[in-house]
């Protein structure tokens, strides 16, 4: 099951030139671009591991692509990788754009668990199949 989080997630995966243009757009807006990765695809897993540091002083998308490629070298196929852009302007101070750039080769998806509780109520839990295995060995 294809993970759909962040922007463009219903589009085919972006190509490198497309990623470069998106990143340049972020930089031109003065946002700090970050590269993050994780192997826990749960939607509530908000804080992914940060690759390196936020790139506050990069002026050209090539610098971000340089890091993205380094991250891919280390994690491609085993982790999700996303690019996020943080706007530090007062009153924004939050992410303005985030999109997945790389995903594991095989995405097994999620299971929906139903727990029957008092009365006729049901509680729902989603759990990624891949999360059954220990961190680092999931994909």
């Amino acid at each position, binding site marked *: 099951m294809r993970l759909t989080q962040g922007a463009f997630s219903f589009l085919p995966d972006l190509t490198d030139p*497309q990623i470069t243009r*998106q990143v340049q757009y972020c930089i031109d807006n003065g946002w700090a671009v970050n590269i993050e990765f994780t192997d826990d695809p749960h939607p509530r897993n908000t804080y992914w591991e940060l690759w390196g540091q936020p790139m506050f002083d990069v*002026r050209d998308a*090539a610098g971000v692509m340089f890091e993205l490629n380094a991250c891919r070298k280390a994690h491609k196929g085993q982790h999700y990788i996303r690019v996020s852009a943080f706007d530090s302007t007062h009153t924004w101070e939050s992410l303005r754009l985030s999109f997945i750039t790389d995903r594991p080769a095989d995405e097994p998806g999620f299971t929906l668990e139903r727990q029957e509780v008092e009365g006729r109520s049901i509680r729902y839990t989603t759990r990624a199949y891949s999360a059954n295995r220990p961190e680092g060995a999931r994909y």
Partner: protein
Amino acid sequence: MDAVTDTPSADARPVESGVCPPDAIDLRAEFVESGLAAVLEELDTDLVGLGPVKRRLREIGALLLVDRARARFGLQAVSPTLHMSFTGNPGTGKTTVALRMAQILHRLGYVRKGHLVTVTRDDLVGQYIGHTAPKTKDVLKRAMGGVLFIDEAYYLYRPENERDYGQEAIEILLQVMENQRDDLVVILAGYSDRMERFFTANPGFRSRVAHHIDFPDYSGEELEAIGGRLLGGMNYALSPDAEEAFHRYVDLRMKQPHFANGRSIRNALDRARLRQANRLFNGERPVTARDLTTIEAEDILASRVFSGGIDSYPPLK
């Protein structure tokens, strides 16, 4: 949504699509049209001397135009390697030209952003194991889309200390210089003899740097012209007598040791300004605007150079 959509840009279109290539292209007209003529003219008027540097820039500019013309005929145009090395004696304008170079390359369309990141050994080499690589990469990332200027580049390589981390920085630099030629232009600068040794010890650098530009020493007239510009820029002028004295000063100073071309001239003029200020301050009458802008012969003749010493501070023995 905060995102751009990927519309195909005009220049991404293949050359053949519908538009017939012209029979011939007037390179002269292109030269003026592209703004290149203006850029080079500006360089000519702004910087005194530096013949080899200007010639090389002209060549790079010509290559750009030819490449563009080739693209119009549908011929392959490979972007050239633009890494440069500036060598020359102290004060020959290496740093000044590097600052201009970023701007020029940007206008020529070789670099996308045209900013200049100036670094020295300190910014590239770390203090402990594992510190160098991230530091160097960080600098490289910052410089991408612009020009990375490594001043006194030979300090990166310290053969006397085999555990020096400079070598690591050099390796990363070389790798990025090779693989990301389109993203980054690296300019190495330093004094001729030491750079020569640096390149001998690191043959990888020599072959990856396409343009070795040697900055010649300035001639006497050029130095005087530089002095005139410096003063003009600060709203000063030499009186006719002072001009004559300055001419003699330059002649004498050039023959002395520790002569640093443009920098020596700047320092000499700074000292002349000090003497002028002191003379005006000690003068009996109120000063006019003319007094304030004019440097007299005595301000220059008071220099130690005329009594056989070297005009510098602290005084050299």
